[in-house]
């Protein structure tokens, strides 16, 4: 007896939701949304937040070995920004009704995914330059579009992040430009980093449209506004002239401008490598997760001390528990 009216209500709510999406309206946390929209956003946003957090590790590796005090201060600021970006997006994800502790647990237990790119090692100082230039460059291409996502808290976090990422990309490109006009060894170091990071950076924008199970649904809901292949093409078109400007070559013999399409054609991506890294078999997957687990365990006494301090000083208006 009860079943019929409930279905009708659900259908009506769903129709209203789809109409709001179609009209380009922004969905806010307390608005009704289909369960599937909620779970897809939690998956996508938490993966994004985890990527920011794990993304601190490859660069953190070089903080104590930066070539100058200026570069060290810049790198610390950048890594701190990544922590902040993780917090912006965790905060947005929590508005969907999921607990922060649960998200962290998903990461530490290996159930959650994060960007494949951070499972590659940072072997030289030039890697700091290329990460800012390629990895943050690709992230900007992706996040500029996500800043128009239909879910308000996600879009607002992206706007905040995009403003800060421009510093990341520019400082990276400056490192590479400086090395590229340095000694032959320095230029070779820059070229080596470019060679190692180019293909993983292209993969970072996600599987090809023909093999991306979530894209169609996320596009329909206007969470994503461009497909992975469209974003990848845009990143390539932007980056090729930047490589030319500093006299470095991108490691793809098939890369050339196509006057008909007005885009750069490029060679085949090794998707087998991508899926291997996604499945946990990249060069640094285990090391990255272990570093996060160690950080969580080693921070335990800080959390305990902060709670004890808060309990001791709590007044009725500021109870901590």
């Amino acid at each position, binding site marked *: 007896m009860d079943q019929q009216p409930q279905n009708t209500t659900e259908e009506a709510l769903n129709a209203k939701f789809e109409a709001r999406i179609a009209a380009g309206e922004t969905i806010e946390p307390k608005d009704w949304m289909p369960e599937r929209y909620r779970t897809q956003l939690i998956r996508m946003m938490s993966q994004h937040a985890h990527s920011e957090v794990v993304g601190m590790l490859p660069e953190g590796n070089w903080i104590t070995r930066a070539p100058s005090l200026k570069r060290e201060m810049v790198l610390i600021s950048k890594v701190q920004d990544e922590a902040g970006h993780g917090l912006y997006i965790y905060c947005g994800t929590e508005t969907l009704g999921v607990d922060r502790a649960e998200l962290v647990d998903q990461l530490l237990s290996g159930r959650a995914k994060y960007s494949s790119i951070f499972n590659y090692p940072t072997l030289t100082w030039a890697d700091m330059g290329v990460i800012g230039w390629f990895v943050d460059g690709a992230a900007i291409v992706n996040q500029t579009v996500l800043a128009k996502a239909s879910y308000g808290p996600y879009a607002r976090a992206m706007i905040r992040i995009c403003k*800060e990422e421009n510093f990341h990309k520019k400082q990276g490109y400056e490192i590479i430009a400086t090395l590229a006009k340095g000694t032959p060894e320095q230029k070779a170091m820059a070229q080596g980093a470019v060679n190692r990071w180019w293909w993983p950076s292209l993969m970072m924008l996600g599987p090809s449209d023909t093999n991306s199970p979530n894209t169609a649904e996320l596009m329909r809901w206007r969470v994503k506004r461009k497909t992975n292949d469209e974003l990848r093409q845009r990143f390539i078109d932007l980056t090729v002239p930047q490589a030319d400007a500093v006299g470095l070559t991108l490691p793809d013999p098939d890369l050339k401008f196509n006057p008909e399409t007005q885009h750069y054609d490029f060679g085949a991506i090794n998707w087998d490598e991508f899926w291997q890294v996604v499945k946990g078999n990249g060069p640094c997957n285990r090391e990255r997760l272990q570093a996060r687990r160690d950080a969580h365990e080693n921070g335990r006494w800080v959390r305990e001390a902060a709670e004890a301090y808060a309990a001791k000083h709590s007044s009725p208006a500021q109870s901590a528990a």
Partner: protein
Amino acid sequence: MTSNETQWPLWEVFTQKDDGSPHEHAGSVHAADAEMALQNARDVYGRRGNVVSMWVVPSAMITASPSDQAGPFFEPGAEKIYRHPQFYKIPRGLKGF
């Protein structure tokens, strides 16, 4: 005490960008107490010197308007078109209004 795996309370963060501007919602932070919430909020939402004042409020203390009845709830304001200056007609060509 071993309750450190429990979730610290959530605080909503409001920032004022410059003197004279209103405080606007920036996001949220988890913290054990108000002092820590302010410090975390400063580190997360004020890293670039673009904030002159900050409020933190326990999220649980905020009462929000009902989102599923936003229409009826705000209707009394929307229907009073005579509150807007466009409602009134004045002689053509008159300046200074």
